């Protein structure tokens, strides 16, 4: 019979405010196998952990139950405590009294108390049956895959590479740089976005430890922490980049013109193009969907012009596999598709209603107007500009519930830029609340107001065209008045949403997404750059909307996590894997059929039974390096010959029984 110790945590008032922890500990003393039980304010604290270690010695405990928060938070903490106390770390079972009891049942204290006792009884019943488990060691591949070449991916790749590790950076667009490369200036310092991002782009391209694949996509990620395999598709560029010098002759004679995505459709580009002059790599690709050579079957203008013969219309996609030990996902964001839902702003019918990102291109010296603010409809300089905030953000009815975090500040920046570039211009900003939480942000907002931007608290109910003007009707809720403004241009602060295809990517890698499609971090506070899939980390806006400083900070955080992982020579494996009882296994291999990791293989054993000649027969064998411990096989096995360590049939049945008393 094991000797179980039960430690009930108050978690300050989080548990102790709802549940009577001393009473739970007292009750627990009567459970089978429990020889010691106590309660403490914070079991996870240093004195709390020491208390466990001391009790192990004093009461000769060999199984520990900690009744506190979710095991998803502190299981690893307490396993280390057990290890330090000289016990096998897997002699731990936790009862989740916080997330599953005190936090959700403050309205029913009596019933919650009984539930808490049941939960501890369950944990003690399982603890009594715990077995010592011993991890194996697996080697770590010291290479890192970064998916996405925006500022987050660039920063993560540079940090990891600077630490001396190899990095593979994959970007689906023809250039790295992401959304930041499109921006004109950055708030609140107004330093030029290109001036701070393009040197980093170049650093990536030049870094000896970084292998850059642009115009490429990750198609499959398999494997596990330390040993991932990724399949990458290099899309055909139809330009041989080993020959191309990037001279730029080719696109001068291209007969096609296509709305320019990089300029948010406000300009045009050729079918053979580089997205912008500072693109990395600074070599063109052919957009086959719009190239006459592909659509009409004849043209070849660029091929004739190219002085080095780099144009290759026959080029095919290339697919190859790489092995990496860690993955950083930095796939960035998209913008809320306002044209689909916001009828009051004209569903995108009015050319002079543009998005904030469109404004960035208009005001950018490298943009379609050379930095002059001009109306898309007639090219005139607008005198009155209306900004509408929270388009798609904080709108439960039509958009997303959340705040996109950057719109208040970029709108303030835009207002400043209008006032700076157009003398005597009038600027109005419709807002719900102004959120300026960052360093220097509130000061910047005040400065823009002082410069003359008029902030109106209220929603816009309608925008419509009247002659060459856009009439903006809205409410000023502070004054309680209706407002009508005849504007020359309207700029919508469209919210930040999950990037296109992010859900597919999440499925492919095996990481969860939250309700809005952003990737879910392992813990909102304590593990913000990790995912629940070991070895996969998050950087930037793919996790949630954030501004550039936060993105860069998170990217460096992810890089630090990657380094901490890849600097190890080998890793401990999860010992909670399947095992086969050969005596029970009849070799039907139903388990093999359900295993997603191909971890089960038939093996021939020689069975020696008393009174019978030795007999060769086939049984299932689990490869512990491949098994991830899902347990699907245990249910497929009718004989119960295959069981999952740490979640055995016996343990789970004991848990059921303990709860059904």
């Amino acid at each position: 019979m094991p000797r179980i110790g039960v430690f009930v945590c108050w978690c300050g008032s989080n548990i102790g405010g709802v549940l009577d922890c001393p009473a739970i500990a007292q009750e627990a003393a009567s459970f089978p196998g429990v020889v010691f039980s106590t309660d403490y304010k914070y079991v996870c604290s240093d004195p709390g952990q020491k208390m466990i270690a001391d009790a192990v010695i004093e009461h000769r405990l060999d199984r520990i139950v900690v009744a506190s928060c979710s095991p998803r938070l502190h299981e690893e903490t307490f396993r280390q405590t057990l290890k330090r106390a000289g016990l096998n770390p897997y002699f731990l079972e936790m009862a989740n009294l916080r997330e599953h009891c005190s936090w959700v049942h403050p309205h029913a204290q009596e019933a919650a108390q009984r539930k808490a006792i049941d939960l501890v009884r369950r944990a003690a019943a399982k603890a009594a049956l715990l077995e010592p488990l011993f991890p194996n060691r697996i080697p770590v591949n010291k290479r890192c895959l970064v998916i996405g070449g925006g500022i987050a991916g660039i920063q993560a790749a540079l940090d990891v590479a600077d630490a001396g590790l190899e990095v593979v950076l994959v970007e689906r667009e023809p250039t790295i740089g992401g959304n930041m490369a499109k921006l004109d200036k950055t708030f609140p310092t107004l330093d030029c976005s290109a001036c701070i991002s393009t040197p980093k782009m170049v650093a990536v391209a030049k870094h000896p430890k970084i292998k850059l694949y642009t115009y490429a996509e990750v198609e499959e990620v398999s494997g596990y922490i330390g040993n991932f395999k990724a399949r990458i598709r290099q899309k055909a560029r139809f330009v041989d980049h080993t020959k191309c010098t990037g001279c730029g002759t080719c696109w001068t004679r291209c007969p096609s013109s296509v709305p320019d995505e990089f300029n948010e459709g406000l300009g045009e580009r050729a079918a053979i193009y580089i997205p912008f002059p500072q693109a990395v790599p600074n070599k063109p690709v052919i957009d086959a969907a719009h190239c006459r050579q592909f659509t009409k079957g004849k043209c070849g203008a660029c091929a004739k012009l190219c002085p080095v013969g780099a144009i290759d219309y026959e080029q095919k996609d290339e697919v190859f596999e790489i092995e990496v030990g860690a993955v950083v996902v930095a796939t960035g964001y998209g913008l809320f598709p306002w044209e689909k839902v916001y009828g009051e702003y004209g569903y995108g019918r009015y050319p002079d209603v543009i998005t904030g990102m469109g404004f960035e291109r208009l005001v950018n010296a490298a943009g379609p107007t050379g930095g002059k603010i001009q109306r898309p409809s007639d090219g005139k300089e607008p005198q009155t500009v209306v900004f509408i905030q929270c388009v798609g953000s904080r709108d439960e009815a039509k958009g997303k519930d959340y705040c996109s975090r950057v719109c208040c500040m970029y709108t303030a920046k835009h207002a400043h830029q209008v006032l700076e570039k157009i003398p005597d211009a009038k600027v109005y900003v419709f807002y719900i609340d102004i959120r300026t939480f960052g360093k220097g942000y509130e000061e910047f907002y005040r400065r823009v107001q002082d410069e003359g931007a008029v902030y109106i608290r209220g929603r816009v109910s309608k925008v419509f065209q009247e002659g060459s003007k856009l009439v903006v009707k809205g409410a000023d809720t502070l004054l309680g008045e209706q407002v009508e403004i005849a504007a020359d241009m309207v700029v919508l602060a469209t919210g930040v949403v999950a990037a296109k295809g992010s859900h597919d990517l999440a499925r492919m890698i095996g990481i969860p997404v939250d309700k809005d499609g952003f990737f879910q971090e392992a813990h909102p506070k304590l593990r913000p750059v990790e995912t629940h899939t070991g070895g996969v980390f998050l950087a930037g806006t793919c996790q949630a909307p954030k501004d550039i400083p936060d993105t860069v900070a998170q990217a460096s955080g992810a890089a630090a996590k990657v380094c901490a992982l890849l600097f190890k020579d080998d890793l401990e494996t999860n010992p909670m894997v399947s095992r086969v009882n050969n005596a029970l296994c009849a070799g039907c291999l139903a388990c093999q059929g359900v295993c997603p990791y191909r971890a089960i293989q038939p093996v021939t054993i020689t069975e020696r039974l008393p009174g019978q000649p030795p007999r060769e027969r086939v049984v299932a064998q689990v490869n512990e390096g491949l098994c991830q411990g899902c347990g699907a096989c245990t249910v497929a096995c009718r004989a119960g010959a295959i069981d999952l360590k740490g979640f055995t049939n016996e343990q789970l049945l004991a848990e059921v029984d303990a709860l059904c008393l």
Partner: protein
Amino acid sequence: MSVSKSEVMEAKEKVWQPKIVAFLCNWCSYAGADLAGVSRLKYPPNVRIIRVPCSSRINPQFILRALQRGADGVLVAGCHPGDCHYVSGNYFTRRRLLLFKRLLEYVGYEPERLKVRWVSAAEGARFADTIKEMVDELAYLGPNIRMREIK
């Protein structure tokens, strides 16, 4: 005659309350239940959770055992199809439990006794709602007495 608060509570407690045993996969549904906690969503305290790595670890015998030994209802929750942490586990769960649920109903269990729901790590509210829904349904049905020896 005055009645103390604890006596009222005691009288209330004696009223039968449904007991639910829930099997939750570690990566989605257990995390979803954690999120319900973190978000302080209130739901009835009738559920007792057992953590399993994946919904495919849940042997139908666990469900039957719970129903026979004292549970009035059993909840099985896992990742949404296609989102399984272990690639395909919940597809097997779906097949197994589609069949097993029908078998239970065939021998006389009411359909409400076994509920299977996909609850992602982001769906704390869905978890809380599922429990509320189950408690309502089971309270209406009354105690589960099928296939038990009535003492």
